[in-house]
């Protein structure tokens, strides 16, 4: 280290304290901090400036470097996770080495979290002193470049995954699209119309699904799940578990003769695609436009799998010999440079709110069930029917079921107001029933959304402001007999009302997928409190994650509607394309290295490294680190009893100096 230091001359540290407008200066005495910095050893320049990250701010650093006044830089401003890159670059542009730089976080860790100005200033001084003590021991480093594999994997075949896949494939990139259901399409395939334009959902989605199927650059793996991810940005290795469909995908032509031939003459199994409103056979396709249009056998219900004594009429009738009861799970392994997660959401389980009677009263439906019901290709061919087959004369739509509720989910699910309005319109159109919307607040921000709300007001749909207290079949008056009564406080009038209806639609909110936690662990990313995948920065990196090369699209990141999901999918594709077209990634040079002459041959580090980057060289009698495999966690360094292992940017010396600095002065 000392040899490297000498190449850079005696340490001359420049300290730059940022006001960040008033974000820092309001709480921290910037002038006092600057004067304090000037008094520290090795500090040759100490300045303060309104916005260090601005061009003039960076120019101040660069000029001092060019003038030879400094050879090390400390900027006391925001978090290094925010602007470390900016100032490293400025240091390099000024002629220094980007890594002869250290940041003191006096905004996120000081001014924004401290009330007492004197204590805030003291804490800022301590952090500045720590950075100065440390940067004196920094050494020039170079970044290694590694090539980026040009292929991309997209996980989830809903509208977000489909759009990202098509964007990437149209740009000439090879895409692996992995979907766990037997078909792509996701939730959007289940909807009848989309708000606010009332476009037919299938009409705009199915062409994109077919385009995915026929695109030469897209490898579509449905009925498949990611089993394991290893590697890092630019060079991921992904293992995909391909579940057996028991129907050969390359042989099946989608004639559906096998389904007719199944020895089950009538369908008996609840149909997942129609959310249980209809039945399917053990061999089935989820819906007529399923992509790929390939049958799948459900081994849980198929007689052959249960008894091995079925006459296998499905196989007899198949002219392509596509049915194969011996199929087994396959593991496919591919290398990709980037990954886009578009794993979507699940709807709130309405049985969790018992007082709304879902699962107890036959005529209480979830919004997703009604979506299927109003869909012409759905279980009732588009007819809205009550459990007894009659048409409802009055319908209640209950908003915020599993949203904005301290007992379930505190957040707003963003789409329910608009889809409730859409369903209100469709129900009115199909049944001419009286439709009541029970809402807390109408939330209709978006292009054409408020106008759609206005339109519904004109269509004589009733709007009652208040959260529904209870839904019951207990009649207090004659008109309530045989009906479901909504009990609600109408907060605009200030009275409790009882409104009898024939049918109730619960506008269920959006929740993270049940296995979101397992999925995020596989991809080494974080989740928010609620379980949505966490973006790197809500504004500046909204589709990136804390794992480089893994991007987010659609509702897996948080509740969003179709336009937002598609826009985000485009953004994720653009980020992945930028990575691929640059062709390389520059790695943070924070890898471990071995000072072989100090190694005592204890082998402790070899077993600790989670990446197998350390081997013991028997000729040198020392542990050696493979820099290409090391990810820079520093676990080995902390374990080395002889101090032979060190980590660039986090050497023992640098951290010990930081500890001294943070405590020595204030």
């Amino acid at each position, binding site marked *: 280290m000392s040899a490297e230091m000498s190449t850079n001359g005696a340490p001359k540290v420049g300290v730059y304290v940022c006001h960040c407008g008033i974000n820092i200066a309001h709480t921290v005495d910037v002038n006092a901090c600057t004067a304090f910095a000037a008094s520290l050893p090795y500090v040759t320049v100490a300045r303060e400036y309104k916005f260090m990250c601005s061009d003039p701010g960076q120019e101040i650093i660069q000029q001092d470097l060019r003038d030879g006044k400094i050879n090390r830089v400390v900027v006391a401003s925001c*978090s*290094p*996770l*925010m602007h470390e890159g900016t100032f490293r670059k400025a240091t390099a542009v000024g002629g220094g080495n980007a890594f002869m730089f250290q940041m003191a*976080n006096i*905004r*996120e*860790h*000081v001014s*924004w*979290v*401290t*009330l*007492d100005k004197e*204590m*805030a200033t*003291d*804490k800022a001084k*301590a*952090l500045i002193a*720590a950075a100065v003590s440390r940067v004196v021991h920094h050494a020039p480093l170079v970044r290694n470049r590694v090539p980026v594999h040009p292929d991309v994997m997209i996980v989830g075949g809903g509208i977000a995954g489909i759009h990202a896949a098509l964007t990437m494939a149209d740009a000439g990139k090879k895409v692996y699209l992995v979907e766990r259901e037997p078909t792509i399409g996701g939730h959007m395939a289940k909807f009848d119309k989309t708000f606010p334009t009332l476009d037919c959902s299938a009409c705009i989605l199915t062409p994109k699904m077919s385009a995915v199927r026929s695109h030469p650059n897209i490898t579509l793996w449905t009925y498949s799940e990611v089993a394991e991810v290893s590697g890092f940005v630019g060079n991921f290795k992904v293992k995909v578990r391909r579940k057996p469909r028991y129907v050969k995908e390359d042989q099946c032509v989608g004639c559906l003769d096998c389904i007719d031939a199944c020895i089950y003459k009538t369908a008996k199994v609840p149909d997942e695609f129609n959310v249980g409103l209809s039945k399917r056979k053990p061999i089935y396709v989820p819906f007529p436009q399923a992509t790929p249009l390939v049958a799948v056998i459900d081994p849980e219900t198929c007689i052959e799998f249960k008894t091995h004594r079925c006459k296998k009429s499905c196989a007899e009738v198949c002219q392509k010999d596509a049915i194969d009861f011996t199929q087994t799970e396959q593991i496919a392994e591919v290398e990709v440079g980037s990954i886009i997660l578009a794993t979507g959401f699940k709807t709130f389980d309405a049985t969790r709110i018992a007082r709304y009677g879902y699962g107890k009263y036959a005529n209480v439906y979830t919004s997703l069930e009604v979506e299927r019901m109003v869909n012409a290709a759905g279980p009732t061919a588009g007819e809205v029917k009550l459990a007894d087959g009659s048409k409802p004369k009055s319908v209640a739509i209950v908003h915020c079921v599993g949203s904005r509720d301290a007992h379930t989910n505190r957040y707003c699910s963003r789409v329910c107001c608009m889809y409730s309005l859409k369903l209100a319109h469709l129900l009115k159109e199909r049944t001419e029933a009286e439709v009541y919307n029970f809402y807390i607040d109408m939330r209709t921000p978006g292009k054409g959304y408020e106008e759609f709300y206005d339109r519904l007001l004109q269509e004589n749909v009733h709007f009652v402001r208040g959260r529904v207290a209870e839904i019951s079949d207990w009649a207090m008056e004659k008109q309530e007999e045989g009906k479901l009564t909504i009990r609600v406080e109408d907060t605009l009038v200030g009275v409790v009302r009882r409104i009898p209806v024939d049918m109730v639609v619960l506008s269920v909110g959006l929740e993270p997928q049940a296995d979101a936690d397992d999925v995020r*662990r596989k991809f*080494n990313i*974080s*989740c*928010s*409190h609620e379980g949505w995948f*966490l973006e790197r920065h809500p504004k500046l990196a909204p589709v990136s994650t*804390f*794992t480089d090369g893994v991007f987010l699209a659609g509702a897996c990141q948080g509740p969003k509607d179709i336009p937002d999901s598609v826009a985000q999918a485009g953004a994720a594709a653009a980020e992945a394309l930028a990575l691929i077209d640059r062709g390389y990634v520059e790695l943070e040079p*924070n890898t471990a290295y071995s000072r072989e002459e100090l190694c005592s041959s204890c082998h402790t580090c070899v077993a*600790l490294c*989670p990446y197998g980057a350390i081997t013991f060289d028997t000729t040198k009698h020392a542990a050696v680190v493979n820099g290409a495999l090391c*990810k*820079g*966690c*520093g*676990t080995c*360094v*902390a*374990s080395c009893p002889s101090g032979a292992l060190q*980590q660039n940017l*986090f050497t*023992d010396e640098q*951290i*010990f100096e*930081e*500890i*001294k600095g*943070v*405590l*020595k002065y*204030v």
Partner: protein
Amino acid sequence: MSDSTTPQNFEPRIVAFFCNWCTYTAADLAGTARMKYAANVRVIRTMCSGRFDPQFVFAAFREGADAVLLGGCHPGDCHYMEGNYKALRRFFLMRRFLESMGIERDRIRLEWIAASEGDKVQRTINDMTAAVRALGPLSMEKRALLHSADLSAAIDKPESRPAATKGGAA
């Protein structure tokens, strides 16, 4: 913190080691959300809690820290797969070692704080600051000064007796 030698004004100095991916990010989130908390904790960032060398903790105490806080990702969430498990094992080792040196176990703490848990950073720092304030300073010199301050206060006002536990008054 210039006047940290009267019991009322004893401001503990706590050195924290936070991993880059979870706890440091959570501390940034607490800042962005403007959550106010005690100014007594000074954070040193490492890439992973696996980098927390026990010597760092001992050095912090040697250099004058009253307590040390360690923060890493929740079990199973480590950005580097299992660095936090290493930190946990070392934590037990460090605490035993410190206890055998007469340093109270409340002066070292390990917390799992995820990137989304800004509120947990606030809570942890406030809790720990209060606990360490109640313990009083670690340095014998400062304790002696505190004790003499107590005595002179008792002499000035004979009716008020020195507190049984040092520093609890703050």
